């Protein structure tokens, strides 16, 4: 992709590349949990096509299209990114790779990391070689995240880390963890936290899976017992990890809001419902009315994500947009899945029944308004920072 290429030239070139390089098996049907590659040393490719698709995209920088080229991306502009998503959607191509590294750590490193750190940590994320998990929450630090107690003692060239994290999604499958660790016990709670990068294979790191209501075990308890973390594995300044943590959360929230996963760009709810109930099935007036309302909201929330992206490209800060998007997107997603269950009737009540994992998906969405900060916490952020009401 040459500089000075017009949008249409870029589109034509991309379209041709996608036609030639996206395997048929990687078009459509991304329903199963492992249909989209999460990468990492423990990843088992579901088929050759999944591996080929990842490798081809990674070579072009298309797993992280907007990241700079020296960080494993394709350096696309905002307009090119829009075209990229349109062309991917046109052939219903699966996302080649998804991960916390892409959604969360990457943006934080791009913002706070040293050049050395960016070049060291980002390309393996882009190639799907290293999978990251997020060590924020602890038993006593959920909504009150700054209350983390996992401690890091200064031992000269390293920190000695001890403590426990909980709800660590995919900790048992991840290669590395980014963790909030208290490195100054005397400072006030927001000012004594450091953002550390820890190798999950280090001695003293242990994970214990927790089973979720949807039947699977995606999250874990994570224990640190005298884990040595070299000093260079810190992002940002010592004891100022809260700034990094908050910045990362805005990206996490945007991702969870669903905007990033084609909530509006994806298939219309009505079409999905009709599929279940048959063409004339959508006659239940209540269901239809609720579905219409959801569709209206989904489209408008999708546009809002676009608007915020356009605004930030134009240098107009979008303020506390991520809290708003997260709240609206996740509450809507829960409603959508309620409707899908309702449309499925008794067929939706079986594990792996006629509708596949619909019940599991439905149950999983209940976490959307909890993970990454609860809906109540999002509303409090809006209330305080946007409306200026007393915190």
């Amino acid at each position: 992709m040459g500089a000075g290429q017009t949008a249409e030239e870029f589109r034509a070139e991309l379209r041709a590349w996608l036609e030639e390089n996206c395997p048929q098996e990687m078009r459509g049907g991304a329903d199963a949990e492992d249909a989209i590659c999460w990468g990492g040393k423990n990843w088992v490719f579901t088929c050759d096509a999944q591996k080929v698709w990842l490798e081809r995209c990674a070579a072009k920088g298309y797993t992280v299209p907007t990241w700079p080229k020296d960080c494993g991306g394709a350096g696309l502009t905002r307009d090119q990114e829009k075209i990229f998503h349109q062309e991917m959607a046109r052939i219903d191509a699966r996302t080649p790779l998804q991960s916390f590294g892409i959604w969360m750590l990457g943006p934080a490193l791009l913002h706070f990391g040293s050049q050395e750190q960016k070049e060291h940590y980002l390309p393996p994320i882009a190639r799907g070689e290293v999978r990251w998990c997020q060590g924020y929450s602890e038993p006593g630090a959920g909504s009150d995240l700054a209350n983390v107690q996992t401690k890091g003692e200064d031992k000269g060239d390293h920190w000695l880390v001890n403590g426990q994290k909980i709800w660590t999604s995919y900790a048992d499958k991840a290669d590395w963890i980014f963790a909030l660790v208290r490195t100054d016990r005397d400072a006030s709670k927001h000012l004594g936290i450091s953002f550390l990068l820890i190798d999950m294979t280090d001695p003293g790191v242990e994970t214990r899976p927790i089973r979720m209501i949807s039947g699977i075990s995606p999250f874990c308890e994570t224990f640190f017992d005298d884990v040595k973390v070299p000093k260079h594995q810190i992002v940002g300044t010592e004891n100022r990890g809260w700034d990094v943590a908050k910045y990362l959360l805005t990206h996490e929230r945007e991702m969870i809001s669903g905007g990033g996963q084609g909530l509006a760009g994806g298939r219309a709810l009505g079409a999905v419902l009709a599929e279940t109930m048959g063409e004339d099935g959508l006659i239940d007036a209540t269901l239809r009315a609720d579905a219409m309302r959801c569709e209206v909201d989904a489209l408008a929330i999708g546009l809002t994500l676009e608007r915020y992206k356009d605004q930030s490209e134009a240098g107009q800060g979008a303020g506390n947009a991520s809290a708003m998007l997260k709240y609206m997107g996740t509450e809507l997603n829960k409603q959508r899945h309620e409707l899908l269950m309702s449309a499925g009737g008794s067929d939706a009540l079986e594990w792996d029944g006629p509708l596949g994992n619909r019940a599991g998906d439905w149950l999983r969405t209940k976490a959307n308004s909890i993970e990454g900060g609860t809906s109540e916490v999002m509303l409090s952020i809006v209330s305080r920072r946007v409306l200026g009401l007393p915190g």
Partner: protein
Amino acid sequence: MTKLVMTEEETMLGDMARGFLDGAAPVSAFRKLRDAGETHDAKLWKEMADMGWAGVLVPEDQGGSDMGFAAANVIAQELGKTLVVSPFLSTAVMAATALRQVGDARAKGALAKIASGDLTYALAIDEGIKHDPDATAMEAKADGNGFRLSGKKTFVVDGAMADRLLVLAKTAEGLTLFDIPADRAGITRDASNMIDARDAARITFEDVEATGEDVLGQVDSAMSVLKPALEAGQAALAAETAGLAAGAFGMTVDYLKERKQFGATIGSFQALQHRAAHLWCETEVTASAILNAGRLLDSDPDNATLAVSLAKARATSTAQLAVMEGVQMHGGIGMTDDFDMGFYMKRARVVAEWLGDYGYHAEKVAALRGF
């Protein structure tokens, strides 16, 4: 590629409009009109025309400012914030858009007069309690070289004072749009006593004569002229509605910071904080839908239906929530006529119905999304 971001010109237009309206048409001006039983402010409309607002969609050749639909939305939104009474929607947005589809000498003459503020229009479309142009029953019977119109129209916004009417009627093979003076023989206009204290009328047509000259566009194909006009109107009305919601919301947040109970400002109570925050989220999402509608009307007007209906549906539900919460969070004072919130509530109910309610537009969205 169109961007969902306000351009510098749009921001300036909005700021300028706000500045002007805060001086010339604050809510207190509306209250004065209402108390005097008036539904039109001729001086204000003339000033708006001088600023190019009446001609916002009129080509420069006819003396308009031709700023486009997104700009019209910006103006409408500011009008909504302080409940400004004007024929902006029916005349400057809808009639101008309809006339522009035709563009013959007569239409050009009318456009020039709209731009200068010397001609107002009302759209006589609805006959039943809900907006439904396709269900038009009023007939225009062929009579010699012309037509005879007989029937009843209702909820004709600005219908009591408008100089001319755009009348939708059934002809032999379809629907036809007529552009006739409002005082033509056989027309009886009854001003409705509206809850929002605005001009709306029930209009009876008794054997009203119309010639071929009075037809706007082609006989039997009203929609090629009317559809773009209605969509422009629906988008601008959505913008006005969003402005109204913003106005009510602003008053409410101010009150949360001011009113004390239990020794604290009521805005320190989390139950109210979260409701106010939710409302803000709704207004943000609606703002995107409105900006998008303006962009599509300007860039791809033939394919703007989804965007327009989305904006109108979202604005309607957001404003209704804003005024309900507005009254509730003000407590007793919110229920008093002396306080402005009631004006917002009544206006929100009227704009919810005008040009299609939530269900009408949600159905359009659903149909276009393959339900």
